[in-house]
């Protein structure tokens, strides 16, 4: 973009030097926890004087952390299982309807991602309290599903826009009903986008903390809720181990999604 200014070395050096600092600012907090997670010490010394796996053992050996991990994984799986089919159906409807109707549906589906999480959380808490459902897995699940639906739609809408609808027309004219047309034609062809949407929905639930903090409790506490509570109280190096595992998993998922989309 700035090719027209090849002589302006100083400006270029300043711009890139500044940008490098900003990028370091963005990466640093994620990277700094990795060596700490392998430290042998109770103190957060940097660089660690001795290395060990004790914080990982601490995490995998703790019944509380493991229960939270299990809750989070179950919740993520259920969220993806509910949100992705619902998102697919409404994306088909938005794609076919077009115009004002599609825009209205999209607007309603986007509401949960625009409203501050804290409001969704306390509102959901009130509604669940009135039904006696606070602290149940169900309460957190519906909260996570409405957050995951827009995320899945972002992946599925453009994929459906590229889809050749003549195939569905052909199948329908040959006597396939809609369930057959969706299951037999749309789903197989959108396989890769559906996989991406599923992983994104799973990550959305895994990452969600505010609704969990207010609505989940006791045995149904999620990993983020437990992490939040222990961050507020003290700086436990076990969190460094969890953080490292977490980042490794997320990077792996993103790599899978992008590589599969390219191939």
């Amino acid at each position, binding site marked *: 973009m700035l090719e027209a200014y090849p002589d302006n070395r100083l400006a270029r050096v300043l*711009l890139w030097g500044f940008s490098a600092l900003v990028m370091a600012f963005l990466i640093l907090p994620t990277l700094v926890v990795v060596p700490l997670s392998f430290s042998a010490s109770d103190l957060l010394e940097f660089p660690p004087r001795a290395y060990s796996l004790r914080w990982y053992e601490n995490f995998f050996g703790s019944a509380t952390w493991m229960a939270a991990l299990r809750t989070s994984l179950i919740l993520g799986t259920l969220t993806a299982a509910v949100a992705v089919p619902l998102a697919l159906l409404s994306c088909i409807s938005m794609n076919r309807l077009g115009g004002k109707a599609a825009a209205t549906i999209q607007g309603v589906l986007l509401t949960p991602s625009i409203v501050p999480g804290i409001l969704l959380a306390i509102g959901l808490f009130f509604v669940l309290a009135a039904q006696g459902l606070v602290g149940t897995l169900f309460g957190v699940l519906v909260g996570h599903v409405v957050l995951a639906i827009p995320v899945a739609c972002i992946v599925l809408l453009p994929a459906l826009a590229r889809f050749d609808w003549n195939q569905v027309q052909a199948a329908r004219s040959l006597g396939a009903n809609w369930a057959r047309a969706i299951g037999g034609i749309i789903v197989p062809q959108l396989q890769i986008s559906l996989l991406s949407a599923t992983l994104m929905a799973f990550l959305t639930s895994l990452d969600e903390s505010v609704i969990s903090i207010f609505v989940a409790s006791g045995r149904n506490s999620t990993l983020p809720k437990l992490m939040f509570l222990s961050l507020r109280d003290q700086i436990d190096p076990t969190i460094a181990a969890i953080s490292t595992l977490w980042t490794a998993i997320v990077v792996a998922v993103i790599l899978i999604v992008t590589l599969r989309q390219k191939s």
Partner: protein
Amino acid sequence: MTIAADPVLAADGRRERRFFLSLSLPALCIVGLAAILPLLWIIRQSFLTTAGEYTVGNYDKVLSSGLTWSALAATLELSLGTLVVCILLGTPLALALASARPRVANVLMAFVMLPLWTSILVRTYGWLVLLRRDGLINAALTALGLTAEPLPLVYNFTGTLIGMVHYMLPLFLLPVYAAMRDIDTNLIRAAASMGATLGQVIRTVILPLSAGGIFSGSIIVFIYTIGFFITPAVLGGGKVNPLAIRIERTLSTFQDWGSASVLGILLLVLMALIAVMFLTARRLMAYNKMGAAHA
């Protein structure tokens, strides 16, 4: 005879439309139940006493409390502060990325987006480690002899702001970068060939043409930061109390559902006001552009 006028086909079309509408129903129902009903419930709860009787006392109590207004001020300070720092850090970075070769830019963008994919709790923990009294940054500063005493970088406004800027910067960067990528490089070449300096090109060509992206980025920053909870709760150390924190404290420490709801409505009103402000600003910007074209 046209197709639309054929009553049979028209009825068929209507039936198909109804069918497609019905495909959205399950998703709409769950959003209604788990997002819209809860928001309406907050309004209902704000008019109820603990015993469940109708009252306007909650509004009286919340609006006459000094804590509410200082929470409002803290919310705006954090949002505005985050926005200003994002513009100062993000715009030059977007310019650098937009001027890089596409392959380099893609790799760098992946790095920039990495924090977006890691949990907010992971990042908050990272900042806690970096910013503590005996943390990495204070250790580096004292080792270099820049400060004698460790600086108070966390459990205060500074730490909260750092955490929030770190959360918002990638989200701010995306629209700005996209806008700068779309600038026609011929415009810059033309300006250069007519003797404009680099500074002039940035001021009179690049920045005006990426104003739309900066504007979108600013809306995103405001919408997200206005209700931020995790970052001030962990990095604020009890000293930074925006509305979201007050809502949580009113609810869980004082069990005062009514007042918490009033605070929630205040947050919603604040969001609506800011949305209206941004929309008006955008309309004015478009209007001015039209005026300039006519002049």
